[in-house]
């Protein structure tokens, strides 16, 4: 299992154990994590699944593709360490990762 800590905008955190191979978005939605609505169901088309990835983990999540960057560019909350969680596949290498959700999606 891959252990992920989600921290919301108020600082409250929730730890989720997920199967490797699923997306970070799935792990969040299936475990009822607050602050991720994922309206498009993972099609990289709504930007309501944005997370900020802690610096030490960011590189390990891989580089966002062009489509993902375009969608992130149309959010108000994009930062240098933003990712769309539906575009990150969980692997053992991400065990222990910490991500934060924005105050408001899009």
């Amino acid at each position, binding site marked *: 299992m891959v252990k992920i800590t989600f921290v919301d905008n108020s600082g409250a955190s929730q730890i989720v154990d997920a199967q490797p191979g699923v997306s970070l978005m799935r792990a969040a939605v299936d475990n009822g994590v607050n602050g991720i*609505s*994922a*309206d*498009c*169901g993972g*099609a*990289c*088309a*709504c*930007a*309501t699944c944005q997370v900020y990835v802690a610096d030490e983990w960011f590189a390990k999540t891989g580089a966002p593709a062009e489509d993902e960057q*375009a*969608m992130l*560019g*149309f959010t*108000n*909350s994009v930062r240098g360490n933003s990712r769309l969680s539906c575009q990150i596949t969980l692997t053992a290498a991400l065990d222990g990762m910490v991500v934060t959700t*924005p*105050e*408001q999606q*899009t």
Partner: protein
Amino acid sequence: MDTVMQNSGLLDIPLDRLDVSQHHLFRTGEVLPLFARLRREDPVHYCAQSQNGPYWSVTKHEDIMKVDTNPKVFSSSWENGGIVLDDAQAIPPVKDFVISAFIALDEPRHGVYRRAVQPIVSADSLRSLEDLVRTRTKKVLDSLPRDQVFNWVDLVSIELTTLLLATLFDVPVEDRHLLREWSDVTATLEGMDGFIGHENRIAKLTECLHYFMKLWNDRVNAPPKFDLVSMLAHDPNTRNMTPIDYLSQILVLIVGGNDTTRNTMSATINAINLFPDEYRKVREDRKLIPAMVDEIIRWQTPIPHMRRTALEDFQLRGKLIRKGDKVAMWYYSGNRDEEVFPDGDSVNVNRPNVSRQLSFGFGIHRCMGMNIAKLQLRILWEEMLDRFEFIEMLKPPVRTMSNQINGYTEVMVRIRG
């Protein structure tokens, strides 16, 4: 409705003669069983002849997502025909008067304009709007007549949406009727109710341009402020645009923020009268308000279609869409696709997957004002429930005759005092 359909024989018409884009079908509601038929028999449907020439209908949720998320193949640009089936909206009615709003541009120009005004829907901005919206909503609801019949569209829906628009542009609230008029003029084309003729339309839009040029001139040399005009005037990427480009961006913001939310406010009354049990559930548990807001936006689908133009050949569900073809993504149909939303004609506040609804579109053009619309509607619900036991609709509403806007002109109600 079934008898209407049997009488009109539309359900038996050969598929190759079926044209779901006829405006009147949207007023009568006849279009819904026709969409159901297409989803069943021919989900990606070619219509060879219509008031707007040949076009494809995409009717399934999954296929609409495929088209909407592929802007490289499916263009929004007005240069290719724009975002509605009616080309007249994209073709300049008078030389040099092209309305090229960012909703009808492809990358990279779309992004330049969108990014300039996007901060208006930031979390900070919405937080500061919340109190204002609440104060105004209270005032409007408190002033409604009791035990008398009135049109909810005029006294509530139009009033609240135009007040908000005036705030977003920072114009005097007394001028809100002008915004409403310009919005209607922009969205009402030949063949629809209320069309005022091409020349009058241009005259009205020119009046709008002059009004907003004055605001621009006042604000471009003043320190930046937090309103849509000031944002465009100060963003280095937009401050040198032509007046017509400027007008275009203003119009999309006026139209986008006006009809859609207005008609959802009117739809709310229709919905609670048709589905009183769902209303009661929300009354008893206010945590259901956001889900109810989403569900009514799905059910209403304020924008029934968005059009794209294929830039290359594309296979969709075994059909070959050819380069240059017009494609209608029928959100109104996808939002009732039985594979995603069973019993989609009903309002159901407990629908588990309502956030997958298509009413705001998906992909890079996804509605910029979504969170503002949801904020206004949530507050309307909260304040309604605080004040009224129920809002009784006295006769069936009068709907607009348009395949571009699912709306209402009349929702006659009475509130007991």
